[in-house]
């Protein structure tokens, strides 16, 4: 069809032909980039020392439309894969009807999908696995009770090692706040003879936060890899009567109330960002939870952004989980002329330190 108002110097059909040829090529490139990203993500998982991710498992694509996945078989839906997504199968349940796979949004986690919707590349030869909620509730260390004991002058006391509780890496040093990393076995304390015991108020707990897909994209350039335009963010929040998720990109903070989809599980579908992320704006995502007594969970950022320095192509990858100590894990990659990890930081109780996962080489 040739329009009377065709504006271009070249004929319409010739232009359309160029568009289709180039479009097919872009589509192919995007697929290659997507595979490369998947490979690099796996590599990143190994690099930061997550345990038990690789090399075990069988790769398999998801068939059908969308496939919900679950934290445990037959529990509340925690997210979904899409047709063609490739997952790494790491186990099968005793019934054989459920597969344990790695969560691409949080490589250290395992989630479960129904066996019939996955088409393995090869015969499944994976061990029988059980769902353990404790395993995927990643190190939620909220001290229920803190005790300060003061002793008579000159008293020498021994503090058992097991009373020390921290997940702060040993290399971390505190510049502010009461951080205790390594406590000697024997301590000599000289203080007035009083004893006080303080019990922290009960409060909701965010056990884990995941995003699926683990990328929240910006679309200024129009370049993106294949994938969803939205990300489903799921949080497990216990002991809460209301949960609010808030985020800010640049000057416009926004918030919403995630949808409760199961006991203690909340879900929010996050739209894509347009151009807000392109120009140095940090991205922060927080959860606020309140229990029936009005106790509030600390507002905690689970993702804080670095930014590309060039107003071009980028996206945020929410590969972290929100827990008390390890509150931020963000990688920011740049697409278009290569994939380049910018930063990987963790904020520990408000103090940002370079990420040092167990077994990782300090970078």
């Amino acid at each position, binding site marked *: 069809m040739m329009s009377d108002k065709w504006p*271009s*110097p070249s004929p319409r059909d010739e232009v359309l032909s160029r568009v289709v040829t180039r*479009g097919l090529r872009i589509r192919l490139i995007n697929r290659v980039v997507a595979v490369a990203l998947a490979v690099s993500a796996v590599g990143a998982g190994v690099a930061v020392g997550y345990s038990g991710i690789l090399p075990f498992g069988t790769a398999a694509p998801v068939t059908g439309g969308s496939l919900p996945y679950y934290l445990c078989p037959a529990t509340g839906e925690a997210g979904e894969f899409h047709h063609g997504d490739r997952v790494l199968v790491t186990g099968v349940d005793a019934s054989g009807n459920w597969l344990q796979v790695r969560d691409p949004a949080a490589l250290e986690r395992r989630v479960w999908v129904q066996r019939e919707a996955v088409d393995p590349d090869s015969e499944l030869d994976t061990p029988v696995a059980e769902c353990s909620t404790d395993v995927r509730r990643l190190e939620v260390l909220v001290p229920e009770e803190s005790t300060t004991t003061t002793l008579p002058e000159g008293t020498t006391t021994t503090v058992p090692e097991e009373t020390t509780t921290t997940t702060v890496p040993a290399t971390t040093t505190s510049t502010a706040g009461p951080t205790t990393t390594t406590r000697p076995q024997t301590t000599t304390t000289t203080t007035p003879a009083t004893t006080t015991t303080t019990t922290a108020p009960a409060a909701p707990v965010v056990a884990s936060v995941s995003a699926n897909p683990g990328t929240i994209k910006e*679309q200024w350039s129009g370049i993106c890899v294949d994938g969803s335009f939205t990300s489903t963010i799921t949080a497990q929040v216990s002991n809460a009567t209301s949960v609010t998720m808030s985020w800010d990109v640049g000057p416009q903070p926004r918030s919403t109330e995630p949808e409760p989809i199961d006991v203690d599980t909340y879900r929010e579908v996050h739209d894509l960002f*347009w151009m807000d992320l392109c120009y140095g704006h940090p991205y922060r995502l927080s959860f606020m939870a309140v229990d029936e007594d009005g106790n509030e969970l600390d507002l905690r950022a689970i993702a804080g952004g670095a930014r590309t320095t060039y107003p071009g192509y980028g996206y945020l990858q929410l590969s972290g989980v929100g827990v008390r100590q390890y509150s931020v894990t963000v990688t920011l990659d740049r697409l278009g002329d290569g994939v380049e990890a910018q930063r990987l930081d963790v904020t520990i109780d408000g103090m940002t330190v370079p990420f040092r996962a167990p077994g990782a080489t300090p970078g």
Partner: protein
Amino acid sequence: MSANLRTPTGFEEAFDGLYATAFRVALRALGNPTAAEDVAVETLARAFAHWGKIGDQPWREGWVVRVASNLAFDAARARSRFSDTPPEETGREDEDVAARVSLAQELARLPRRQREVLALRHLAGHSEAETAEVLRVSEGSVKTHLHRGLAAMRSRLGVEMGGMTGDVR
């Protein structure tokens, strides 16, 4: 010829309108029909590649405008960067390119909505009503964002803005 091309459902029906929009945006940014055609082709090729996601979306034209304007300003920037001509010998066309690059840079610093309104209104040539429809906001909101965006641009670009305002229209 087009009958032999395998295009996604609805793409060819939407092609003429979206291409015209992309071409118009690029032409206003670059001032060169041949260069504008290259940008418009690239824009529509990206739309083709992502048609499954944007094809049914009400904001697909806005998407095309954004992509086209970004590509056009990238092209203008590249032309400026790779010009062998010393600055003192630049002619009118190079001055235009430099001005357009400045405009693009300042446009990029505006808040999102102001940027979208300016791009649709002045690069895509939409009316305020059309801009409002594409962005799914009221005309009053369009006017507000337009006013604020232009005021910010004028403030940042100073005396240059008067000329550029005329240029982008």
